[in-house]
């Protein structure tokens, strides 16, 4: 890895240091999953609307990078930039290989593939393999291991996708008859938000806001 790549990756990883992206997308995922579960399980009209709204909100956040970036930027202006500074956010997702297209390993800034694709990969598996208790377990664990291996070199080597898939598997077993996709999304969302919340708390503790004033660099007018 040359110096340019090293510092580029370091800057990209900085985007995740405060835990805000995980927190935001975790909450969005939990809402989206919760919405799906509610709509499937309870056949009451107003709950259906709430569920649909939550699912729509999730899709807007996940699919529109502009919206999610704007929200994250707004949060970071208040939390991160005054504490540890600003650096260019990671570039947009640009798949450079089919394996990465499947899991967005080339760029951790885009959560669409991070949060959706593992479920799309995992969701059909129980249908096929649920006849055998261990079939589903092995299938999902293999998927998780494969996704992790395929993206092991990325700048922020998450195991999120693996854990989400495994969490989905656990839940599929724990709640028999629950809609797999929504329930696993909800659990994955809680896990992601928990992880983000912990990272944020640690970040705030380690980097108290500086009282020095914010204009250390006299710049000539140009």
């Amino acid at each position: 890895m040359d110096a340019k790549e090293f510092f580029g990756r370091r800057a990209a990883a900085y985007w995740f240091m405060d835990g805000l992206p995980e927190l935001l997308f975790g909450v969005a995922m939990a809402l989206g999953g919760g919405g799906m579960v509610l709509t499937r399980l309870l056949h009451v009209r107003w709950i259906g609307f709430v569920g649909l709204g939550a699912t729509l909100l999730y899709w807007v956040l996940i699919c529109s990078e502009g919206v999610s970036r704007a929200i994250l930027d707004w949060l970071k202006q208040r939390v991160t930039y005054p504490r540890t500074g600003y650096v260019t956010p990671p570039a947009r997702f640009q798949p450079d290989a089919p394996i990465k297209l499947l899991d967005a390993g080339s760029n951790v800034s885009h959560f669409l593939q991070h949060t959706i694709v593992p479920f799309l990969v995992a969701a059909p598996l129980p249908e096929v393999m649920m006849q055998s208790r261990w079939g589903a377990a092995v299938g999902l664990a293999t998927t998780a291991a494969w996704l992790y291996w395929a993206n092991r070199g990325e700048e922020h080597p998450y195991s999120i996708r693996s854990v989400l898939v495994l969490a989905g598997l656990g839940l599929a077993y724990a709640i028999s008859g629950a809609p797999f996709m929504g329930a696993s999304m909800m659990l994955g969302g809680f896990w992601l938000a928990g992880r983000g919340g912990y990272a944020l708390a640690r970040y705030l503790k380690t980097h108290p806001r500086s009282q020095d004033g914010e204009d250390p660099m006299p710049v000539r007018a140009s």
Partner: protein
Amino acid sequence: MKDRIKELADLDRLIHEPARLMIVMILEGAGEADFLYLQRECGLTQGNLSSHLAKLEEAGYVEIQKAFKGKYPLTICKLTERGRAAFAGYSQRMIGVLGNRRRK
């Protein structure tokens, strides 16, 4: 031998200074960064970083702009084309010199 000494003597001294080299390398990789980020990454004091940035700006290697992210004012630093070219030349020269040394 003489060539190598000449190559060393021709190194861009503005970039060769460790703190400035660090700044240039960070900006080359990261795109643009603000003062606080650079300070944290380089481990320099405010005054030190400020003076190194001023030198790089004077040479036209770095562009410094005031910007606002919401209400928060940022001093954003970016490598100029000239800075990029200077760093590329510096890297080439260093690799040449060190490469020769390794082969010996």
